[in-house]
């Protein structure tokens, strides 16, 4: 029983990070049916950004998280604009290869600039373990759980309550029809990339904090796992993801 709860706690805190990652994946998939291989690498960028600002500019956790979200959001939009937008009307497999290219670029670009060694993530939050009936919970786990819940809630609100969210849902159902009723397709897709990438950036910073180890290839495995989850789970639609 103890083991079970321990696994549950560990699973929940880790799972909530992956959920953030998978959400972005699904949103992009739902809107332009693109398997965004580079999504995992945006998460890696987020982790490195967090590493950088905490070490060099001595940001605190919250500031690092927010700045990483902004930076990754911008990265996502730029990538979409440069690499995916020209291919919107090409065969999907072409866009997939481009996404793989972007993924290679980010991974190896980071490896070139910062070296491919794993590095330790600065521990901005001092770890404290709580022992509840034999189950250990650390404050970091709690913090991760709370942060990701808040982020998911915000995401939910954006999608359900705002005009942009409505546009996103419309595009995910039928982008031609959405365009006919006056949805700005380009803006909506950019916004989706920004939102998804920001979530990935937040996940990156949190995973850095949780594991204390980041490297340029860290996005690869979660990327493929999220791809499997996104397709097998059949959560291609934005509302479905939530």
């Amino acid at each position, binding site marked *: 029983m103890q083991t079970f709860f321990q696994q549950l706690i*560990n699973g929940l805190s880790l799972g909530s990070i992956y959920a953030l990652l998978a959400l972005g994946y699904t949103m992009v998939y739902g809107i332009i049916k693109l398997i965004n291989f580079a999504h995992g690498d945006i998460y890696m960028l987020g982790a490195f950004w967090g590493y950088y600002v905490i070490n060099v500019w001595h940001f605190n956790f919250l500031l690092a998280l927010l700045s990483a979200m902004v930076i990754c959001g911008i990265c996502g939009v730029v990538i979409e604009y440069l690499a995916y937008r020209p291919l919107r009307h090409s065969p999907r497999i072409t866009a997939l290869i481009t996404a793989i290219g972007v993924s290679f670029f980010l991974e190896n670009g980071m490896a070139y600039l910062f070296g*491919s060694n794993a590095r330790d993530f600065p521990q901005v939050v001092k*770890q404290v373990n709580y022992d509840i009936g034999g189950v*250990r919970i650390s404050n970091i786990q709690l913090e991760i759980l709370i942060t990701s819940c808040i982020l998911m809630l915000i995401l939910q609100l954006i999608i359900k309550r705002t005009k942009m969210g409505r546009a996103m849902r419309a595009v995910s159902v039928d982008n031609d029809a959405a365009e006919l009723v006056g949805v700005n397709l380009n803006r909506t897709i950019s916004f989706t990339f920004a939102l998804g990438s920001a979530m990935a950036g937040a996940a990156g910073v949190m995973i850095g904090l949780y*594991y*204390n180890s980041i*490297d340029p290839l860290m996005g*690869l495995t979660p990327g493929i796992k999220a791809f499997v989850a996104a397709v097998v789970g059949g959560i291609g639609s934005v509302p479905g993801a939530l």
Partner: protein
Amino acid sequence: MRKSVVKKLIGLGTVMMAAGILAGCSTAKSESKGNPVGKTIKIGVNMELSGAAAGYGNSQKQGIQLAVDQINKAGGINVDGKKKKITLIIKDNKTSTSTSASVAAQLVNKDKVNAIVGPATTNAGTAQIPNITKAAVPSVSPSATDPNFTLQKSGKVQPYVFRACYQNNFQGSTAAKFAYTDLKTKRVAVLADNSSDYGTGLAKAFKKTYKGKVAASQYFQEGDKDFNAILTSFKNKKIDAIYAPGYYSELGLIVKQARQAGINVPIIGSDGMADPKLAQIAGDKNASNVYYTTPFSTRVASQNGTAKKFMNAFKERYNEEAPTFSALAYDSVNMIKDAIETEKSADSAKIAAGLAKVKNFDGVTGKITIDSKHNANKPIVVETLTNGKVSAATEIK
């Protein structure tokens, strides 16, 4: 008419096949006597600079560059009275076997190197053997650990393949002896890296030698980040220690997560974790009661002049503590230098002969002797980490 067409087609086909087989015979056999030395001594580096093992490859590259720069600053290598400088040719093999073979072919044929350092992994290493053997160019791998790496299928030694590191059997059985005799453990759990021969080879050697009971045996993959599930399953097994052969990137996390999960038994590892980054990833507080077998000890180094000089030079140049991989690569280059000096020639075939004769070579990672199987024999040390710092080093005989 129809029949003649068939005949023609079949005829053409046979001609082509025959031509192929003949050509195969006439081209494949072009024995080489090796690459003679030119104005400078050319050393090729076939290294994992990108791909899965890029981290280790780049550390080795730093060690190689340091060694070569030091040698060149001192005027070069003394080849039968004449000082010759080293030209370094560095190529990336993407951590891929086919690219490694291609890189090796390019180094020995195009660049006409006299010796090769690398690759870091056994798989990439074995892939280059056919090409370098054909060209009679020796290679020294800093970190290919598979016991059969230097051997042919028949069990005879590969004439042009050498290594600067331990082979798995030696290191694994040393760890087993240490765990049983020095730590007095009776029940251990084995947690090995399953994605390379390094982790599985060591685990196999450990299990074979360990006299106590192996209570549990689990594997993980390179790049895994979450070991909580496995560690939690160990918790109930009443183990005295964990043997976890692998590299520091995963081992750091294993140490960290084990301590967080309340598993405070000794964790024993291998030279793949002999890196200052281990304690950084695990956190200094967690990196206690951690042991690993290593040829290269910062503690031993303080008594060893060669090692001390290397450590200082490395820190000065790269502004970080020297990892084991860099030390092994540094030694690989200097072993080649040693071989050239004994043979008084830098022709590739001579270097191979010289490497086989390396004896009591004063390396950073200890006094190295190349045995008949082209393995590097050198003393082995078990280092103990306490609060992230090396607190003790025991030499195992």
